[in-house]
């Protein structure tokens, strides 16, 4: 029974590791750090979903472009990394506004399917274009945060990078909340997402409002990319993996909830790091994300914090 033996073998390893408190803690910290990066890209997905009701599959690609620009600004032009990232956020916001104006706005905003196809096409185009311009060899983008760890227990380290990632994502969600709840632009944005026709009828210019949403989402996505890439290596397919984890995070959180995106991101980050370690599933890391999406869709399609849309007909 070789199958049974190998299954038991897996559990052997698992049981060995389960008693290792330091490993738990190490993977917990790593999960938080990864989770924060998924959360920030998930926030970008949620911003678009809230306003338009569809998932922008090109979100990761816009972030990819942004991260390459951050690479150019910092490594090639010598700007400090944080400044380079801010410039890249602004640049990717401009690109997203252009894309929204040229490729998205001509389609009726209440039919999701054509728009989803457009964003899938954009994903392929941008990823390939990045490959053509910058090539496929891997590069490394330095982190915005200092290296080292202020808190250590054996192999478990709470690094500055983990703290920085978490701090960034909480700052982003806080600012987004203030923008949406307290400003006139935020009110326009929420009005458009709530009732397109009534939004027009109170004088809101729907197109520019959605364009603003795209710009903001692209900037946030680029920031998320700049958090995640220093842990990995920069190459043209890097954001596709991140997008899948972020999609799982957004689905778990409920697609239209900012808080949900953060909770979902952290949960997916933790699930990924803990499952991979203790079940020895490193080959299946990406599958955990897909499994999360599957379970959410089966058990609770509105996610943890999402609102079920009720329509009077």
């Amino acid at each position, binding site marked *: 029974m070789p199958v049974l033996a190998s299954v038991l073998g897996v559990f052997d390893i698992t049981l060995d590791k389960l008693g290792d408190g330091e490993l738990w803690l190490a993977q917990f910290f790593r999960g938080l750090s990864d989770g924060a990066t998924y959360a920030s890209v998930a926030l970008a997905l949620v911003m678009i979903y809230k306003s338009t009701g569809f998932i922008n599959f090109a979100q990761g690609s816009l972030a990819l472009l942004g991260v390459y620009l951050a690479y150019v600004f910092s490594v090639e032009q010598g700007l400090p990394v944080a400044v380079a990232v801010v410039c890249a956020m602004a640049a990717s916001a401009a690109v997203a506004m252009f894309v929204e104006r040229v490729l998205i706005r001509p389609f009726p905003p209440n039919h999701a399917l054509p728009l989803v196809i457009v964003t899938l096409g954009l994903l392929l185009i941008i990823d390939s274009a990045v490959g053509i311009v910058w090539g496929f060899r891997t590069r490394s983008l330095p982190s915005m945060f200092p290296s080292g760890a202020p808190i250590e227990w054996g192999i478990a380290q709470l690094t500055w990078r983990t703290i920085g990632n978490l701090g960034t994502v909480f700052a982003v969600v806080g600012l987004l909340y203030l923008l949406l709840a307290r400003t006139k632009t935020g009110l326009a944005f929420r009005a458009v997402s709530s*009732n397109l026709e*009534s939004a*027009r009828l109170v004088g809101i210019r729907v197109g520019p409002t959605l364009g603003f949403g795209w710009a903001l989402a692209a900037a946030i996505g680029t920031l998320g990319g700049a958090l995640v890439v220093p842990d990995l290596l920069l190459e043209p397919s890097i954001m596709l993996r991140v997008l899948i984890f972020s999609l799982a995070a957004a689905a778990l959180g409920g697609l239209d909830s900012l808080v949900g995106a953060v909770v979902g991101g952290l949960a997916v980050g933790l699930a990924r790091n803990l499952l991979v370690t203790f079940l020895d599933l490193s080959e299946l890391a990406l599958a955990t994300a897909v499994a999360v999406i599957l379970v959410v869709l089966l058990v609770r399609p509105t996610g943890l914090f999402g609102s079920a849309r009720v329509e009077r007909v």
Partner: protein
Amino acid sequence: MNAVDESARRESTAVGTAYLEVRGLKAAYGDINVLHGIDFSVAEGQIAVILGANGAGKTTTLRALCAMVSTEGSIKLDGEELAGHSTADIVRRGVAHVPQGRGTFPELSVEENLLAGAFVRADNEVRADIERWYETFGVLGERRTQAAGSLSGGEQQMLAIARALMLRPSLLLLDEPSLGLAPMITRTLFEQLSAVNAAAGTTMLVVEQNAILALGAADVAYVLEAGAVALSGPASALADDDGVRRAYLGY
């Protein structure tokens, strides 16, 4: 408002100082023409009602006035051409529209709905206006932090109207305000609309199935049939017209 003012106001209509002047208005959804060149006008401060069977083009007429459907023809508001402008620009000229049955933002709170209604206003009396409509529509004041989608049908209709009034419109378009409301609530609603009309001089154009109530509140009436104006005149005269009575009043 006393009787003298009232008759003076109605007389000014007769002289023909049209505030809203519509000429040769056509509207189509894709290839399907719904309005075949209609003419009508509403004087400043008047309430006009549009009657007609289902599919006659009543809702389309209102949608055409604020560019929510593709149109041809001329729409003049206070002498200025509206045709060809975007909905957002027409709203900025003071045209508020309460669409049929779904004029609110369900996910936003009652108060945010009213703030959204004042989106194009830059003055500092928005707060005062909100309090004013809370007083007029008492139930809205009690529910100011509740999501609009959680209100009852009647409350949502009041909110949609209050939302439209937050624009301080010079022309208010109402699409079947009584739809789905209890008779008592409908009557109260029309009394409130008449009061707003009397106090602020807001010109109103109402599409309404409840012809008795609508003709009672209105100054002039138009009957649409198959995308054309079949009949028009003072509301009181149409209420006495045999054809109108048989078709819309049921006696």
